[in-house]
């Protein structure tokens, strides 16, 4: 079971006018000075495989300055070398994305993101430390992105849930301001609970395996202290309908839905200490990495295939022993693409088994295979 991305072509994507990169199974290292386009290349891989960028909500930024569209194409090798899938995303801001799979119009964006390309990705960008350090919304997004990439039904429930909550919130304000009666509130409660339950069930089912993977990963990265992630509920599945009804008065007063999965969070704990509030920058960074590795293991457990790992500038902040561990980890992955400014982070034995991709000013200068494993 080896799904990997063999080739990528970028047209008008960020600082790339037209570039092609060849990739290998195992470890690929993108190397270049700062601001040359390493991160953009990683972003492009994610964009092509999932249909949207993980980096910014302002997606029109991916279109090269002065151009009106961006296009990315990838060849994804499925299960061996002969069976290959060609996927492409065409994107002009303000228009529907054009997704094609093997030359034919692809599925909807939601379904494409849930493995429509035949591959999945787990990404790490330096800013992702907010999953541990940041607001509850960042942690919910981590869970929702991961679970949506595995189940279209979950992805749809997240979208429909947000719509139902939006309608309910508007109704609450209208009731508060005297424009509507409370007659339909119970109806919107039901709609909210219908979709909210699917979200909550999905997250509940994922927490236990995720925690186990997280604990294992953090033990290797950090040491023996006991790590945990704990879901914090605003309401449990069993009490959901009842709790929403009891919240009517408060919700009307505030004009917003105060309980449900859109307000939940999870705690990241190390030795019983909440890392979000009390962790050092270093602990938060390692915990973020461990969560990403847990996501990798979770995808593997669910679909039996490794996601492609896309890790941006992950080595610079780590000490030597951890860099060594990570290099080995990536090397043993089905496919990992990582970026760095400094190849000296890697021992010669590792570089020998790695594909090096040199980047400069939005051009891919060369991709050298140093005896890459097949």
């Amino acid at each position, binding site marked *: 079971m080896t799904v990997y991305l063999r080739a990528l072509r970028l047209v008008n994507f960020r600082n790339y006018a037209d570039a092609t990169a060849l990739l290998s199974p195992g470890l690929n290292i993108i190397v270049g000075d700062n601001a040359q386009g390493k991160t953009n290349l990683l972003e492009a891989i994610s964009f092509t495989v999932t249909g949207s960028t993980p980096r910014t909500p302002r997606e029109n930024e991916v279109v090269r300055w002065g151009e009106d569209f961006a296009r990315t194409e990838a060849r994804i090798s499925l299960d061996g070398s002969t069976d290959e899938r060609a996927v492409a995303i065409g994107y002009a801001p303000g228009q529907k994305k054009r997704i094609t799979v093997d030359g034919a119009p692809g599925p909807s964006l939601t379904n494409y993101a849930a493995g429509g390309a035949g591959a999945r990705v787990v990404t790490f960008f330096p800013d992702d430390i907010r999953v541990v350090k940041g607001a509850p919304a960042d942690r919910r997004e981590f869970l929702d992105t991961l679970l949506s990439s595995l189940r*279209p039904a979950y992805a*749809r429930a997240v979208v429909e849930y947000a719509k139902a909550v939006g*309608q309910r919130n*508007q109704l609450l304000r209208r009731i508060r301001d005297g424009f*509507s009666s409370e007659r*339909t509130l119970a109806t919107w409660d*039901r*709609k909210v609970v219908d979709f909210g339950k699917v979200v909550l069930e999905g997250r509940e089912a994922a927490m236990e395996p995720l925690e186990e993977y997280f604990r294992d990963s953090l033990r290797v990265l950090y040491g023996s202290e006991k790590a945990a992630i704990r879901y914090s509920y605003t309401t449990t599945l069993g009490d959901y309908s009842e709790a929403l009804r009891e919240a009517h008065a408060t919700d009307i007063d505030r004009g917003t839905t105060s309980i449900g999965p859109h307000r939940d969070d999870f705690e990241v704990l190390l030795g019983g200490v909440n890392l979000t509030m009390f962790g050092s920058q270093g602990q938060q960074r390692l915990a973020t990495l461990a969560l990403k590795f847990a996501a990798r293991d979770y995808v593997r457990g669910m679909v039996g295939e490794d996601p492609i790992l896309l890790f941006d500038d992950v080595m610079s902040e780590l000490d030597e022993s951890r860099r060594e561990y990570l290099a080995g980890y990536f090397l043993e992955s089905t496919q990992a693409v990582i970026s760095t400014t400094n190849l000296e982070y890697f021992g010669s034995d590792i570089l020998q088994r790695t594909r090096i991709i040199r980047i400069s000013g939005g051009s891919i200068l060369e991709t050298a295979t140093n005896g890459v494993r097949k």
Partner: protein
Amino acid sequence: MATYARPVERLITELSKLPSIGPKSAQRIAFHIVRGRQDDAFGLADALREVKEKIHPCKRCFNLTEAEECDICRDTRRDQSVICAVEDPYDIGSIERTGEYRGLYHVLGGALSPLDGIDPENLRIAELLERVQREETKEIVIATNPNTTGEATALFIAQELEDSPVRVTALASGLPVGGDLEYADEVTLGRAFAGRREL
């Protein structure tokens, strides 16, 4: 300052109020009318006038009709004990074309949507509830659109009728007939799965 003579400007403005007609289409249609034959233009004007003068909602079901009651309501051969509730009059056409339904209709005039400021009072839900009582209806089939607002509307009507003896049903959602399973989108297929039935 207006680019064109006032009557032309006015025509463009009126046309651009129509659904899915943007300013450019409005301009193109307006000039088509200006250039075209007088009979055609007057024909269109007459048709517009006639439809507004003669067509109004059916007293009973709010379908569109020229008479007091619509043809469907006046057709005594139809099953008077079943009412199918739809969002818009054109939904009736879709259901009629199936030839499978022989009951009556009720046009709600939209769906509940707090975001658009649409409450039950803005729909013909009270009229439906009243009708059910007056006509001793046995079953209501709710055929609102299978989206968030349509489903909420269906749910609300069902809740309002909870204590009444009338049977409330909703259309099933699932796979298109004659298609292949592999072409069904995941959401539709997922729903069809959830609503699977005993054979």
